[in-house]
């Protein structure tokens, strides 16, 4: 009981030869980061130090937003955004039922009820099913740019405007992703929430997150909320939380962000390559890419027949395929308190039985991709 489940997962993933986790490889080139950490020590600024500010500025440049606030995690980014907007007990917040638990968890932690909406066949929220879920209590929409594919934001913004709802983007997967107007994730809603968990496209070496916004008032509020509501060391303006991006992690991020274009491009080209080779397999359905959108493939996923058998077959061949995730949010025990049941969102339930993820990070080589393709073909033949 005592060991948390991730320890076992680390061990089993280690046995794979084409791995989902590339952090050991990434770490080999870390001299510069150690120099930066030395510098953090010299200035004594382990919390909210200079590197946090530098990183925030740099992040704004890449994501093309006015402000960015480094926080403890992607979950906290969503939670703090909702808090800054005054979301509270009794309110309702719309979000897709297909996401990582944290999206709904962050909503539930504010006291609000997560009201789920079904997804489309790209696993993003179905904008046509949003309006029917809006009640008097609805206060906000949290669309998720799943796997780094921007949602139909213009339509969602229109609905939000019509009903006076806030939009908070769960952009945890979506660094550098944009729509056909080249509008980057994090610029649509009041805030954009990004994760820098070690396995994200842009990562640090522990938990970390960042919020983007173009709204100065929200920016000021978030700066207070992440640090006990402190205006200065001794003056507390409002009660707040402690959710700060560690300074040494900001130093890691500052070095990593230099490579984010390379990382993203490599992921996109790997995805395209796999798409081109897998598209002719009858049992496989690829996810459609919209024209002129930039999807950044935090995950490379497709839908397939005999999914569980394919997953075991690939893993037996030491390919670290994974399921993100086998159950939509409304089917978890945690959701029971909101009276959700099986059959509520048939589309998401169906897709969750067919989806599979294949590693495509920047350390995956062409020969790895060819091996994966070969094995997938072998399985279906």
């Amino acid at each position, binding site marked *: 009981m005592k060991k948390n489940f991730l320890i076992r997962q680390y061990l089993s993933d280690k046995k794979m030869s084409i791995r989902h986790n590339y952090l050991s490889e990434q770490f080999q080139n870390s001299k510069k980061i150690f120099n930066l950490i030395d510098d953090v020590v010299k200035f004594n600024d382990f919390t909210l130090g200079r590197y946090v500010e530098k990183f925030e500025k740099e992040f704004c440049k890449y994501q093309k937003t006015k402000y960015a606030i480094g926080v403890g995690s992607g979950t906290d980014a969503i939670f703090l955004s909702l808090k800054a907007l005054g979301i509270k007990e009794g309110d309702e917040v719309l979000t897709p039922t297909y996401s990582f638990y944290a999206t709904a968890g962050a909503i539930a932690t504010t006291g609000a009820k997560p009201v789920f909406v079904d997804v489309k066949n790209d696993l993003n929220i179905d904008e046509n099913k949003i309006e029917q879920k809006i009640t008097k209590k609805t206060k906000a929409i949290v669309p998720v740019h799943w796997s780094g594919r921007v949602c139909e934001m213009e339509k969602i913004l229109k609905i939000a405007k019509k009903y006076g709802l806030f939009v908070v983007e769960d952009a945890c997967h979506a660094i550098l992703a944009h729509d056909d107007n080249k509008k980057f994730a994090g610029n649509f809603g009041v805030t954009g929430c990004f994760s820098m968990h070690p396995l994200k496209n842009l990562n640090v*070496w522990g938990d970390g997150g960042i919020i983007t916004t173009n709204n100065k008032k929200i920016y000021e509020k978030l700066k207070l909320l992440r640090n006990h509501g402190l205006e200065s060391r001794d003056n507390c303006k*409002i009660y707040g939380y402690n959710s700060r991006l560690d300074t040494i992690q900001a130093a890691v991020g500052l070095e990593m962000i230099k490579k984010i274009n390379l990382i993203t491009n490599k992921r996109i080209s790997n995805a395209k390559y796999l798409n081109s080779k897998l598209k002719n397999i009858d049992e496989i359905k690829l996810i459609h890419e919209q024209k002129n959108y930039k999807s950044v493939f935090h995950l490379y996923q497709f839908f397939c027949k005999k999914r569980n058998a394919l997953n075991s077959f690939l893993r037996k061949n030491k390919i670290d395929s994974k399921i993100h995730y086998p159950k939509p949010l409304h089917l978890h*025990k945690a959701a029971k308190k909101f009276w959700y049941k099986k059959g509520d969102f048939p589309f998401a339930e169906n897709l969750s039985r067919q989806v599979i993820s294949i590693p495509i990070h920047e350390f995956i080589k062409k020969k790895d991709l060819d091996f994966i393709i070969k094995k997938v073909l072998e399985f279906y033949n």
Partner: protein
Amino acid sequence: MKINFTNFPQEFKLLKKELIKKFVHLGNKGEYVLGNELYQFEKNIENYLNVKHVVGVGNWTEGMIMLLKALNFKKGDEIITVSNSFIATCGAIVMSGCKPILVDIKNDLNIDPALIEKKISKKTKAIMPVHLSGIPANLKALKKICKKHKLILLEDAAHAFGIKYYNQYLGTIGKVGVFSLHPRKSFHVFGDGGLIVTNDTKLYKKIMLMRNHGLKNRNESLIWGTNSRLDNLQAGFGNLMLKKIDKWNKIQLNIAKHYSRNLKNLVEIPEYDLNISNPSFHQYIIKVKYRNKLKNYLKKNGIDTAIHYPIPIHRQKAFKKQYGTIKLPKTEFYSNKILSLPINPYLKKREVDFIIKKIKQFYNES
């Protein structure tokens, strides 16, 4: 002479080799979240504190908010604590939906048990003493009150790692204790971090779920949770620091004794009883006349001091806006007299003597 309040660069210099070794070891493994190192750290702390369960969390504040939710405290429930603490003590209570009921302090700067009972109402659920600067609150008296009124004793042990109260460690005496591993604490990591410790298995299991999205395993979420995990890397540093903490606490206690011996006729020195406890002096807080003048005088002489805390919580905007004006005479009185002198394991004897000399000089001149 220039004497800083903290000395991280010196600490880092001494520990650098070990820290980097650990860093490289974990980096090569690529395990940054909830890895084996964190598990080992939690086990090591269990053994050290002689407590059944330890959970590594993001920081003290998040840990406390989670804990209050895990205890099923509802909106409007009251928690009794002090005003003479860092704002987070109250912040966590408010952010969990509960109401902080602030009680005045005694000369040891900790909660005054004699003032508690008249503040207890039907809504009171818990008492949360703060062991300020590592000097234990009067837990014996507090336990009695808790028993009588069926309240839960929660220890804010943010300042108090590795300190025994009689023969038990602080943090393990109430139902549950929360430690901070913030870089400024005596026992710390190199970023934000915290620990929740308890002997209550049910509570432990709930917090283990809550800190990681309510996840029982990778794919199943049992309750809505949040993300508040002590980084694996920081846990690795913590494992190294744990080996040193007794030594450091001892050095700080000796510095404190040296201060006390030499300053007791000039200023009000901290109140502590070595028969009950061996405080680690996360801060060494004296109470003085002409506090601000003395602070400036020391500053002019290159000595960095601090005040914990110049504005008590009940005088902060955040509190006043929500709960109006309350009076805590002793807390207010002391907030103008307290001064924290430099204390850390790297402070040299000649530096301590210099500080003492300058304080003596100040009072001889004025």
